[in-house]
């Protein structure tokens, strides 16, 4: 008995620290968002801040913009990541170099991805200058601004650059470890290569794909630096808006920032719940017994 519990006992200190930081952060945020902030004399609990931000068109635009960039980039990253992993596995040649190259973006920080996107797509960027030299445009500033605008192109592109390899890495590992014999069996029963992918491999890697999707969606929905550096001035992504409220010199603005953060957390939790539900409906099998 003692040995059975030992690992858990040993984990207690770390768990307390991690959970402590996490829970206290969330509780403080929650209290402040509800208007309880004794440091500036706010003691009255109220839903006022929530009501106000939810009625604010600027907030709703931000929410929509964040959902849009996170969702589009995550969906595209998952699709392309799966295809990338699949094609690397299918290619018969030596895999050393490919494996290294596609994993590179994973270790590069997001801010570096931003610089990369900026260097390519800004009006003084590589693409613009390239088109200018080829004579497609008369001067670099004619290059349509693809960054800082409301379609979120730059943000999505930066996320894709980081996340496709991430998805590919997960899927590659799972696919690679999957029993090849199942695919052989399917071929033997008359399935085409394409059918093997759709009916056997994809359903079996689905749990990993869903996890990868949730991770990158939650991350890009809540991340600050990429939309801050590459996004438009209006609408701001939610985390950017929360940050700006937070850095207002007037501390009375703090509850607004916290309310935005709480909405962010709430959305992510709801989203994960929805993903699990949808996933359950489509695939009874999730790798473990239900």
């Amino acid at each position, binding site marked *: 008995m003692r040995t059975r519990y030992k690992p858990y006992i040993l984990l207690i200190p770390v768990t307390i620290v991690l959970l402590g930081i996490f829970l206290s952060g969330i509780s403080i945020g929650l209290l402040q968002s509800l208007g309880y902030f004794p440091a500036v004399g706010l003691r009255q609990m109220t839903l006022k801040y929530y009501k106000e931000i939810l009625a604010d068109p600027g907030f709703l635009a931000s929410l929509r913009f964040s959902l849009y960039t996170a969702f589009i980039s995550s969906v595209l990253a998952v699709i392309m990541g799966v295809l990338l992993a699949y094609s690397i596995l299918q290619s018969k040649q030596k895999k050393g170099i490919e494996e290294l190259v596609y994993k590179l973006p994973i270790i590069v920080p997001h801010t570096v991805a931003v610089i990369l996107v900026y260097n390519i797509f800004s009006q003084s960027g590589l693409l613009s200058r390239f088109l200018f030299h080829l004579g497609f445009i008369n001067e670099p500033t004619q290059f349509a601004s693809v960054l800082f605008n409301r379609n979120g192109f730059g943000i999505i592109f930066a996320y894709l650059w980081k996340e496709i390899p991430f998805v590919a890495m997960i899927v590659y590992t799972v696919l690679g470890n999957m029993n090849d014999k199942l695919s052989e069996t399917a071929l033997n029963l008359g399935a085409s290569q394409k059918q093997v992918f759709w*009916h*056997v491999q994809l359903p079996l890697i689905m749990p990993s794909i869903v996890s990868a999707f949730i991770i990158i969606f939650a991350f890009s929905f809540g991340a600050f630096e990429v939309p801050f550096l590459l996004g438009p001035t209006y609408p701001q992504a939610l985390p950017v808006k929360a940050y700006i409220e937070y850095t207002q010199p007037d501390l009375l603005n703090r509850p607004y920032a916290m309310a935005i953060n709480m909405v962010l957390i709430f959305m992510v939790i709801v989203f994960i719940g929805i993903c699990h539900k949808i996933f359950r409906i489509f695939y009874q099998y999730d790798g473990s017994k239900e």
Partner: protein
Amino acid sequence: MFEIEIKHVLKSFDNKKVLKDINFSVKEGEMITLLGPSGCGKSTTLKIIAGLLMPEQGDVLFNGRSVLNIPVAKRGAVIVFQEYLLFPHMTVEDNIGFGLKMAKMPKNKRAERVKKMLQLVQLEACSKKLPDELSGGQKQRVAIARALAIEPQVLLLDEPFSNLDIRLRETMRSFICELQKKLKITTILVTHDKEEALMVSDRIAVMLDGEIAQYSVPMELYETPISPRVADFLGEKNYICGNIDNGVFYCCFGKYKVHTNKQEEVKAMIKPEDVEMMPLDHKRAIQGRVKQKRYTGDRMHYIIISKEMEIKCITTLKSVFEIGEEVSLDILWDKVVFYQKNK
């Protein structure tokens, strides 16, 4: 149903020759066994027939036509693997209907065929279960139903019983045999279990070191193995060297009239069950002393020392001898097989 011919098939992995010139044929509706020790290339042979592997040389013919350029999916030869390999995310009925779905058979027709298959393997009650919820025998039957659902011309069974416990193995064996006789599918069974092979096959191909060492009906194979190698693979044997002259075999135990056209120096192969043991009787030619005995339940395995030779003997339990006891032996000479000595 197809007739199968394997002609001069060669296959290597990493420069190691696994199949060296495999030749055999299977008649329409016949059930044959590929019998050989683990690692001798049995599964490789099945995969080549099914089209999951390409041979380096040689040909595979169905009904006289080469099928090497027909892809796996279209070949009509289905393998049932030892590990069953059911699709873990599909229910039993979806597993069975998989091949039909891939062939785009309409849904209602498919359901009908799946139902028929479920009846055939007696698993109607499990149709909605996932593979994880099935026992070994049930998984096995699903795998077979899944293979039979697409009405293959050739059924390839790769050690289908070796993951089952003994009792279940017996049941599944007769189940498959009956099914095969009923459907008359040309079938190749792979096994390393010689008793299984002797029990179920029309013919047995013994595979040793990537070659077919002998291809015969079970009785002929067991009674007259073509070489000491095949004989040894089928079980422990006794060998006595001697000379044959004019139908008389001369050896250290005396001379015996035998039926063989072999000449000169020979090696006589005597199966342990063709040696009879009896209490000491000085009128008999062969006497010895019991050195070892092993009880196997229905038989007793003895080793007897006679003229400084160890003679193996397997008897029923009608009379039992003790270690150290002096006994006489009789050899059933008409069952003895002679090999040329240099073999």
